[in-house]
């Protein structure tokens, strides 16, 4: 399993790089904590006026926010920084060095940079998710665990492929960072179950920016409201996107001619 060996190596490099700036760790805890508190406070304000939002109970919504932060942490841990660096390397021509290495280039550019302190988001998000479920003494059966695992894996693959497709566009267009900003703007809509949004926005959050599959579907799995179709749909989309993004990556790579002087 060369993939995991390589990931472990890059992860270790990330740890070495980041632990040199230990104050950042505490700043990260503070910032993530504040963000989480803001999101939870907004939920509290909403539920001070109602008992359920579009059929979601308070603890189900806090569980959703936990998942939102876990996914956010995952993206910021490795996907976003690595692919951002990759796009810079296309412009500077440094990608040449990656291509000479004896491993798959897509793998190398996708795991090149680990921001290990972003694990704080994942841990705190998981904490909120766990607390939401235990406080309400929710019986989590094996089926729910299996569904949640499948949903979050599919969501992770979909989000990664989405980022890879956008980043691959950098082979043709130089200024893709702006397009990535669309993702960040729209991702915040995932703090609420997408079922409450009007149809046009729901479609955008499902197909244009895959927030639905990344956050809402796993949250539905946890609260036991997931129907099989959504899970099958997520798995199908994950497979299709994985194949397409791989094909698109190869196309882009064939188009690359190096930019060194």
């Amino acid at each position: 399993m060369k993939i995991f060996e390589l990931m472990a190596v890059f992860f270790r490099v990330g740890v070495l790089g980041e632990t040199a700036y230990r104050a950042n760790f505490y700043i990260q805890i503070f910032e993530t904590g504040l963000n989480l508190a803001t999101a939870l406070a907004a939920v509290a304000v909403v539920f001070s006026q109602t008992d359920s939002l579009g059929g979601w109970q308070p603890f189900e919504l806090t569980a959703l926010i936990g998942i939102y932060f876990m996914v956010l942490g995952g993206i910021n841990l490795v996907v976003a920084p690595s692919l951002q660096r990759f796009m810079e390397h296309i412009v500077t021509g440094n990608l040449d060095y990656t291509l000479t290495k004896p491993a798959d280039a897509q793998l190398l550019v996708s795991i090149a940079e680990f921001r290990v302190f972003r694990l704080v988001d994942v841990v705190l998000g998981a904490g909120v998710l766990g607390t939401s479920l235990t406080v309400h003494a929710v019986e989590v059966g094996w089926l729910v665990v299996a569904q949640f695992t499948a949903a979050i894996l599919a969501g992770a693959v979909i989000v990664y492929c989405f980022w890879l497709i956008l980043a691959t566009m950098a082979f043709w267009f130089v200024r893709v960072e702006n397009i990535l900003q669309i993702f960040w703007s729209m991702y915040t809509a995932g703090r609420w179950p997408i079922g409450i949004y009007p149809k046009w926005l729901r479609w955008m959050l499902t197909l244009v920016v895959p927030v639905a599959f990344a956050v809402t579907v796993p949250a539905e799995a946890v609260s036991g409201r997931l129907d099989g179709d959504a899970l099958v749909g997520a798995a199908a989309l994950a497979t299709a996107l994985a194949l397409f993004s791989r094909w698109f990556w190869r196309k882009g790579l064939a188009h690359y001619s190096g930019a060194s002087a």
Partner: protein
Amino acid sequence: MRHWLETYRAFLRIAVLEQLQYRASGAIWMIGSVLEPVVFLVVWSTVARSQGGAVAGFTAQTFAAYYIVLMMVNHLTFTWVMHDFQFRVQMGQLSFALLRPVHPIHEDVAANVAYKLVMLTVMMPALVVLWYAFEPEFALAAWSTATFVPALLLAFLLRFLAEWTLALATFWMTRVTAMNQIYFSLQMFLAGRVAPIALLPAWLGDLAHGLPFYYMVGFPVELLLGKISADAALDGLMAQLVWVAVMAALIALVWRRAVARFSAVGS
């Protein structure tokens, strides 16, 4: 006076031309400004419907009016100086601004106004689309519409001066993201962006009226929608004036010390 008009005309012209160059990325930045009020509008109208049509006097249609106006007020008053200042100070770009015979805040005001003008070409279509999608219900009164204009101008001035003052913290601190985030979190709640102030717990509502945030966004929005009595409107305008004076005094006080601390390394 003439001198100032000419200065601002020059700054505005440069800034508009610059914004037109980056219009695509500028438009992408607007997505967040449109989406945030839409999200809260949807959340609150869902709540209103589940509570038999209204919460705290707001129906789905009046929430739509509130958030559509809020979107415009927020667009017209927001600034990005707190993000920018860190780079200016740490990269030494401020040196150029300091060489000019005008206070650098004027260039920032002009750049802000220019961006808003150019981006109205994005905001106006968004306004029309949201209008049709959410069918807001307005009851405009002549006096509140008339007082809305000065209230909006004061809100812009207040938010600009407050954020410019806070941005000066980068002269003393290397990492200001944590401080900025506290400010933005407070503003989300106390300016009326998460919910109209009337829907917040009473103690938070009182806090909002005692701090400047509400007067940057929520106050002009509620004024236009006729949610505020004439007396309260007058009090609000007075509060805006007082806070603007406080912020202006703070800038005058802090700026001199900040510049004295500043040193750039040339190359």
